[in-house]
């Protein structure tokens, strides 16, 4: 039975003299190598030199603060339920009196962890977030030695008050309008059904 049509017939032909001494083959190989000296170099010297990225590149996440510096995330769990890789976990806490400047709403994320090894950087968490709290950025997740170190907690995810991370490019009117297109929502099928009079 033929398993694949990509199989090749192997020949046992005897090598000629010029093939046997290998010298011509070495010369032609060196010629290829040498010719590359005069070609444009594709390698860049990262991290000194960085490649240009798409403005909405999906790299390391950030948990945003609002204009007053309070954390936007309210630990609603929509990102975790949307996550196809199940990389996000969180526990919630209740805001106490006097913490209004720290957390935007009554409930906040006490811990919030993303396993960067599980994450596939699809951006569904960003899309699911009802509070505009989580965004993917054009930063690349750093290499590390231990697996545990890839579980990023709030210390690495929440942006620093004095070092805000700009995500305005992801919030262009087009993006915001896109989020509101009814045709792209799960809703539509249902409304269609209702309009046809079938439940």
């Amino acid at each position, binding site marked *: 039975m033929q398993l694949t049509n990509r199989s090749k017939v192997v020949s046992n032909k005897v090598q000629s003299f010029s093939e046997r001494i290998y010298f011509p083959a070495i010369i032609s190989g060196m010629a290829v190598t040498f010719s590359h000296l005069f070609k444009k170099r594709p390698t860049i010297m990262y991290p000194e030199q960085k490649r240009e990225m798409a403005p909405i590149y999906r790299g390391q996440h950030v948990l945003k603060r609002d204009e007053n510096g309070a954390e936007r995330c309210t630990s609603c769990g929509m990102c975790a339920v949307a996550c196809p890789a199940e990389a996000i976990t969180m526990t919630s806490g209740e805001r106490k009196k006097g913490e209004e400047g720290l957390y935007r709403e*009554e409930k906040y994320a006490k811990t919030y962890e993303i396993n960067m090894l599980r994450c596939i950087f699809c951006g569904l968490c960003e899309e699911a977030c009802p509070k505009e709290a989580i965004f993917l950025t054009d930063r690349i997740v750093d290499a590390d030695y231990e697996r545990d170190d890839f579980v990023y907690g709030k210390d690495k995810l929440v942006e620093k008050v004095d070092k805000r991370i700009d995500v305005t490019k992801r919030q262009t009117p087009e993006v915001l309008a896109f989020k509101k297109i009814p045709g792209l929502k799960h809703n539509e099928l249902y409304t269609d059904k209702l309009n046809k009079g079938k439940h």
Partner: protein
Amino acid sequence: MKVTIDGIEIDVPKGTTILQAARMIGPEVAPPAMCYHSKLKTSGGYCRTCIVKVTQGSAANPTPMPKPVASCRTEVMDGMVVENFINKEVLEARKGVVEFLLINHPLDCPVCDQAGECKLQDLGYENGAASTRYEFKRREFEVIDIGDKIKLHMNRCILCYRCVKTADQITNDRVHGVISRGDASEISTYIENVIDNDFSGNVIDVCPVGALTDKTFRFKQRVWFTKPVDAHRDCKVCSGKSRVWLKGEEVLRVTARKDQWDEVEEFICNSCRYDHKKTSDWVIEGPSPVNRNSVISQNHYEHLNQLKLQVLKQQKALGFMPLDKKP
């Protein structure tokens, strides 16, 4: 008595309401209901979400009723013809009702513990408009504790009176009710009296929204990350048949079992609800039935085949090529 609902005829005994008759046929014709609760007497008639159009009053008098009626409070007549989902007027009216219910609702679902099992969410999703037209300030109340186990968020209340009826009918003496009228009406205890009754916790389960929530479960976990199982224990006060919400080995919450219509099957006592939060306290019978469209069934993989069927169905409706027929 013969009654036709959405073109489906059914024979029901005298004294049945339209809503009950529709529920006998099945969920495809049953109108949604927020305030009606099958286990509570005199419940219903407040929220108006179950309105239907009666196009023929009875066989003897075939004149249609002039405006939509609340199906939970209207008894069937012989030969009555009712239109629910097939009537545009009803759907439009229900959309209006949902808009009214949501006028003062804070829409704080990301914070609310009821999110995921909230009837108002379902109702809004299925019948509501995508955005609000209301421009005024929503009414606001302080969050208060009713006893040490129940939290009352009056902002979220839709005044369905279910908890009041529960307190009236299940527990021996009622210490809470609705005070004030109209826009100012609110659920309150007598001077924030503590509800200490063996069955007071059931007001949490009957609440269709997140107004009354369990303080022992407050912000512990979103419901869709917990796993509901049916379990029982020997209880001297109640039947002990409960639904236990697990996260791993941990019991996060105990509620009463709910039926297909999301209404409590058997009321459970406070001891079962609050004091038995160890897996060893319970005899676990098996996973609770969860509607596959509910977010609680997310990340539970028991229903993969059903899911596939539904995806194929949706693709067909949208005109996509089915997954398995792709080249």
